[in-house]
């Protein structure tokens, strides 16, 4: 899932300073799971905004709602149309894709982000997530025992580790295991160490922004 964190409160308050009617719009997808922008966080953020305005002696109306998936147009439309004309600005609590999906669907409506989107990752323990997938478009996990060197090696090395690891940790951070040493141990466990001897790889990097076109789905839609 996508991992995100709420922006610092000062930054959010500065962004919404000129507005009185604010729709705080959460998302029930990834950001609910990582406790950054789900219905519960919508409630908290709205409360903090009202408290701030009260302190400053300024008026504010906060509307609270959440889309099922803010990156899906069908999910955004009913929520925003239901409250049309009741707000001046949408303060999105979704990931960057969600904010952009709202902006694209309602081009005359200002949408502000209240989260910073960090990465596609997995939960290590409660409150700790690590980056797991760079969405590079050419998955090699089948050769690396389910551990992605493109993402988990700080240098995205494909042909084995650099010489920088110390006591099994990456030169970039003592909190980060060397991905290649993890791959080594995993392949050894699976009795597949010969996978390490494959022919050297060069990664052909994708061009951004990416675009996926599925003709099979488009044809079904057309009929």
């Amino acid at each position, binding site marked *: 899932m996508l991992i995100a964190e709420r922006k610092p409160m000062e930054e959010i308050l500065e962004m919404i300073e000129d507005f009185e009617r604010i729709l705080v719009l959460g998302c029930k997808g990834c950001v609910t799971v990582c406790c950054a922008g789900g219905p519960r966080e919508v409630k908290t953020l709205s409360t903090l905004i009202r408290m701030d305005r009260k302190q400053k002696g300024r008026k504010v109306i906060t509307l609270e709602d959440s889309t099922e998936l803010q990156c899906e147009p069908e999910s955004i439309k009913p929520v925003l149309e239901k409250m049309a004309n009741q707000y001046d600005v949408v303060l999105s609590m979704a990931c960057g894709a969600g904010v952009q999906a709202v902006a694209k669907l309602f081009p005359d409506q200002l949408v502000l982000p209240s989260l910073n989107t960090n990465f596609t990752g997995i939960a290590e323990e409660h409150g700790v997530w690590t980056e797991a997938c760079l969405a590079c478009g050419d998955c090699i996990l089948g050769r690396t025992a389910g551990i992605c060197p493109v993402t988990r090696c700080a240098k995205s090395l494909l042909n084995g580790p650099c010489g920088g690891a110390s006591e099994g940790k990456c030169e970039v951070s003592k909190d980060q295991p060397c991905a290649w040493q993890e791959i080594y141990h995993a392949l050894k466990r699976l009795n597949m160490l010969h996978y390490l001897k494959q022919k050297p790889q*060069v990664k052909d990097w994708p061009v951004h922004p990416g675009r996926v076109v599925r003709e099979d789905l488009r044809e079904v839609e057309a009929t």
Partner: protein
Amino acid sequence: MNFRESLESGKFLVTAEVGPGKGTDVEHLLKDADIIKDRVDAVNVTDLQSSVMRLGSMAFSHLLTDMGIDPIFQMTGRDRNRLALQSDLLSAWVLGIRNVLALTGDHPTMGDHPHAKPVFDLDSVSLLEMIGKLNSGYDMAGNELKGAPDFLAGAVVNPGADTEAALELQIIKMKKKIAAGAKFFQTQAVYDIDLFEKFIRRVEGLKVPIIGGVILLKSAGMARFMNKNVAGVFVPMPLIKEMTDTKDKVKKSIEIAASIVKRLKDLCQGVHIMALGWEKMIPAVLDQADI
């Protein structure tokens, strides 16, 4: 004899290293190079060592060729994509540079511009493959070159990898580097000769010359710093104690380095002396080691 001829002759090789500094002042580096000129087969020029922004390796390598020193142009994948790497190699060739050492490179976070975008489009292995391709008259995309280089390419290996996984992976990668065209290896600094000997026994069947690394110890503090911060370098306690106890650090440093060089003579095909500013001590080290 240039470096390639020395390598092919089978003689015991001596290489040294200079690290260009931050700025355009090269006088002292040229002086250092001049002192060791007649005692070494080649001089490595580092590529933004430790990810610190400095004068470039290509320019300084070229200055060495002007002095009659055969440089080993160090090239990392850290800062340039495949376009820039290939172009720089062609440029290096026309500037008279004949030897390249292919490295992955430290991460930018290790240096003085920690938020620079890391490139690593190619790693040491794919860099070596690309050099082979250029040597054969083609670029990585398969386009024909008008005039091809003929680089002697080398690589590095870290014999002091500190875990079983790290060491096994070093050896697997070393084999990949050889298959990709590495004709010699220079190693991280060796202090623990017994450990180095074990490593040599593992890889001697690969039949590629190995040039063992020697870093001149300047103080006990430097040794402790390296033990803590430099991956693959371990200075054993007795050596640290020798540095602490001595009244003449320079003399002791030369003595320790010479004794390492002497022992490496029986184990590998050369020594790579990293003097880190103490280049003027290199002749004394070589004298004491009977080279």
